[in-house]
């Protein structure tokens, strides 16, 4: 489907400096799924908040339906009925195996894979993780959308030496396959153009996609011919290229097949906003927009990456997040870490409230979505990968039972949760990373 933009006054375009733009036209956009239409598809979103939490400010004291929201979770009051707090899960594959990649990179690497990130810099060790849960889901419910999945971040990527490991372990949580990490995009404009293109009429868009199609055909030929001339050796990079060309081709065909829909879109964002808060809002809004227009059904976003150096002066935290996370039970530092975690959940709460307020088919976007929020690290102070902070919001089309604090036995693999969720969107796989089975029945509607 091609989404095309209604004309906006030239003046607005020229002045287009609007970084504070919180996509004001959201409400005026036509939903892709009308109330009387066919049933709306499932959507999944995975939100990563690294460096762990302070458990006493996160975990509700009691399990079951009558739990009380803790200081970290207080802002989720309005969506409490759609919320599950999940306690007790672990990523033990993120623990060290005597190799060099640090506890932090391993935490985000394992989050959606359940696989240990080995230290690649040693002889004979290559990049090898696993297809992440979001990408497995994209293989099922992302096949018919223009964009199979969207990977975002609002925490600048780490460069240089990343805790003795490879930087992509902290810069993304999404892996296309065992050797290819997906990039997490920070720039709202790049995300916007990926979702909605850079303008033009529907005829222009169609002509453009024909040209792109012929280019892809031609490079596919060229690359296949090339493969025969390389000789013995490592040709994985060519396979990666071929795979990418085919996938883009498939998407273009799928978009063409769905025809054109003219809808009002907000002005495209121009730059990365100056403040974290504005950045977070615009990136969350883009996800709402993408779900609403059914351009994609799978998103992931890093709101705080492992080893994050972000400070939050607007909430009184002037030191870097990772530093603060090593609080050593110092009350001041615990207070600062708690403020950071609470702040992240507050911005997250705005996101899920927007999903709830956005009509979609016979209900709201949130009714058809499941948003998983959490971290691959539990106690950030001690670098523990158990007792992970995890939340789900949304009912995934009535499949998820909500409003509970679910407490599982210590060291239950988090991959059991992922496996359970994947099954609910039709991805029937037997194992994921270190999974030992499914998490049920509590989580699922009877």
């Amino acid at each position: 489907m091609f989404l095309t933009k209604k004309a906006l006054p030239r003046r607005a375009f020229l002045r287009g400096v609007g970084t504070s733009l919180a996509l004001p036209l959201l409400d005026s956009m036509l939903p892709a799924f009308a109330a009387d239409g066919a049933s709306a598809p499932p959507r999944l979103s995975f939100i990563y908040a690294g460096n762990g939490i302070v458990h006493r400010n996160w975990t509700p004291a009691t399990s079951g339906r009558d739990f009380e929201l803790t200081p970290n979770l207080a802002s989720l009051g309005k969506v409490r009925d759609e919320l599950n707090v999940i306690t007790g899960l672990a990523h033990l594959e993120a623990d060290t195996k005597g190799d060099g990649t640090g506890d932090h990179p391993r935490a985000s690497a394992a989050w959606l894979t359940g696989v240990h990130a080995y230290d690649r810099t040693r002889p004979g060790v290559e990049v090898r993780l696993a297809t992440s849960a979001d990408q497995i889901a994209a293989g099922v419910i992302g096949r018919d959308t223009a964009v199979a999945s969207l990977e975002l971040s609002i925490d600048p990527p780490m460069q240089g030496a990343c805790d003795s490991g490879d930087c992509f372990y902290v810069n993304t949580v999404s892996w296309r396959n065992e050797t290819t990490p997906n990039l997490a995009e920070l720039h709202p404009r790049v995300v916007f153009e990926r979702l909605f293109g850079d303008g033009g009429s529907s005829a222009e868009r169609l002509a453009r996609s024909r040209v792109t199609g012929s280019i892809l055909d031609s490079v596919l030929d060229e690359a296949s011919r090339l493969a025969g001339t390389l000789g013995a050796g490592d040709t994985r990079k060519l396979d990666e290229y071929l795979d990418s060309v085919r996938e883009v081709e498939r998407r273009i065909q799928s978009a063409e097949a769905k025809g054109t829909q003219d809808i009002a879109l907000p002005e495209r964002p121009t730059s990365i906003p100056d403040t974290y808060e504005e950045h977070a809002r615009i990136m969350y809004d883009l996800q709402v927009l993408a779900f609403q227009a059914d351009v994609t059904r799978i998103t992931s976003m890093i709101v705080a990456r492992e080893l994050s150096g972000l400070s939050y002066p607007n909430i009184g935290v002037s030191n870097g997040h990772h530093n603060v996370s090593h609080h050593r039970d110092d009350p001041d530092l615990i207070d600062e870490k708690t403020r950071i975690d609470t702040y992240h959940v507050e911005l997250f709460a705005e996101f899920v409230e927007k999903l709830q307020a956005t009509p979609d088919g016979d209900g709201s976007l949130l009714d058809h979505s499941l948003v998983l929020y959490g971290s691959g690290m539990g106690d950030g102070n001690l670098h523990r990968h158990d007792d992970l902070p995890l939340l789900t919001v949304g009912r995934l089309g009535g499949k998820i039972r909500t409003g509970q604090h679910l407490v599982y036995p210590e060291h239950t693999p988090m991959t059991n949760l992922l496996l359970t969720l994947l099954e609910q969107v039709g991805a029937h796989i037997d194992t994921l990373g270190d999974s030992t089975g499914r998490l049920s029945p509590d989580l699922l509607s009877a």
Partner: protein
Amino acid sequence: MTGTGRRNLALGFSVAAIVVAAVAVLASRDGPLSLRQAPGELTAETLGTYCMDCHNPIDFSGNLALDGDELADIGMHAETWEKVVHKLSAGSMPPLGEPRPDPAAYAGVIDYLESELDTVAAASPNPGRLPLLHRLTRTEYENAIRDLLALDNLPAEMDYELLLPADNSSSGFDNIAELLFVSPVVMERYLGAAQKVARLAVGDPSMPTMVNIHRLALELPQDEPVPGSPFGTRGGLVTESYFPLDGDYVFSVDLAGFAREPHEIEITIDGARVALGHTGGRGSGGLEFRVPVSAGPHVFGATFVHRTHALDESTVRVQRRSRGTLPAIEVVTIAGPYAPTGPGVTPSRERIFVCTPASAAEEAPCAREILATLARRAYRRPATDADVETLMAFYDAGRDGGGFDAGIQRALERLLVSPQFLYRIERVPERVAPGEAFAVTPLELASRLSFFLWSSLPDERLLALAESGALVEDAVLAAEIERMLTDPRAESLVDNFAAQWLFLRDVEGKDPDLFIFRDYDESLREAFVTETELFVGSVLREQRSVLDLIRADYTFVNERLAEHYGIPYVEGSRFRRVTLPESSPRGGLLGQGSILTVTSYPTRTSPVLRGKYVLDNLLASPPPPPPPDVPTLATDEADVERATMTLRESMARHRENPECASCHAQMDPIGFAFENFDAVGRWRETDGGLPIDVVSTLPDGMVVDGIEGVKRLLLDDPERFVGAVTEKLLMYALGRNIQYYDRPAIRAIVREAAADNYTFAALVRGIVLSVPFRMRMAPEAGATDSEV
């Protein structure tokens, strides 16, 4: 021999056996046995006495046993022995408190092991493994477009940061072949970039209007002229931009805050005023000018005309942007082209259109010539008929819709997503046996060379030398290296290699707490990076020893930076070279604000990060990661921060815990020696009112006393520092991590460079002539690396 054997006999194995085994190996080599026997025996003895109490098969400390087998065949166990050499060269073994051999014996062990390892490597070279396809990094793509299409300084809307995704910067560099991924998202970006670049280069008259936003940094002072601006102006910006077509462009200038007084703002193109406007007073705001501009690159400016009446601006002391006193420009937007009149005459069109068809019949042959020329440069090899035919199909399709130029544009767009442009491709010839090392082809070597020295495509001369085969000769290679190093494109060794090696790219992401460091602003941040780039560039260009990176008595400052460093009599924003007095702590990299800031936290310094930086980046001896379940760096550091007087206590605590001690005993003394520099690199005598102690002792007994002590540590053993520079440079040159089998090459490069006073050029030459740079290895039979 007998005296030292006792301790080992108690462990259940005999040194005699080791020596016998070692001698047996030596005896089989060429050369007089009697001369070689002694160091081998001595080494076995020394290791037996000082190492094997822990590194034996029973205790297996550090997963290392130096038993008979290991010593008997050093070549077989090269990985182990390179590790041993590395540890010993760093002086980090035996651990603190354990007895050490006398310095001569210690050095003897290193010499013996190194010469054994080098002999084995020379007999069977191992150039290591690289994928056959090596994707261009974003920087390389940008430079390749510059050199292929004469297209530089793209319009802001087409900034490469937006055009293509950032590459992974792991282990320090973003050009590691294995980590340059392509996914569907990246492929989409390449397609988009190709479309935009092609239409800009050709000057597509139907291209959409661009909106190029130039936002001025929040803390950029605007009360003085900015570099490059006309006399009599202040603030605003002067920068290069690309104007896609001949046509009108609308310049919009938005002010930060409200201007009470009237002000004049002028727009300049290539230094000449093209528009002037007034603002200020009630109800005034930004200004907008519509100006005709010719296609191509221009330097444009948007600045205030300096007022000489009313308020005396020069007396207003402003450290950050002056809201209220002097208005500042916040954003300059250039939108256009409007009413375009044509593609104009641009460097890109001159580069692309090597012929002009005078008639319809000439069009196809001319297109062929244009595309063959582009393909040769872009694919870095002679263009084949198949290359041209593939591109001609796109030319034909474009030509039918929009004429000759449109045909070229379409074909160019296709070329820019070809795997042969996006990847450097190397092949394994059929005749090469599995596991065999072989020389790469001259054309492959030309690309290796140009991407190493220029981060870009080979030029015509290099391609021609490769085509004729002459490039493989050492003398030709050496001459080419010399030529290429003096080419402006070699600046990439500074802004790409050194910037990554020294973490200069991380300066931008550092946000020192503005409540603590009140004078830290954007101009200081920029000055930090400029200083280090100019400094490294001077060492490179002036044929200086890389040791000058540590010991130089000069640096580059402008007024802003000089004030920060306390250097008098430097005025204005222009950078100049200053010779420093002997008492100055500023000479060399270690006293530069860039490096002192990237190794600090927002609120304070970090001795651990600084120590780690020196070990990792300047000595190539990265400390291993902390053991599991030990709270890391930050925790230890925070303790230090909370009570400066317990700095020593904190160190002592580390030593009590042997797991922490082995690394922190290396890092902390170096880090503490930097404590006279605060978190933004200012000199200080006290911290929080308490005196600073910058003296500590390393495990090998060396006392490190302040910044001069760290310099001495780096300079006393030049081979170690030069070896580290070589290692980083080799890693960057190859695009892969350095492994144990590269060590003999690194040692050889360092040894050779000694005669040339360790100049940067000598290291580059050594690398280009080395085994890993000139060779590749066919995969072992049954190797799994072509799977997946």
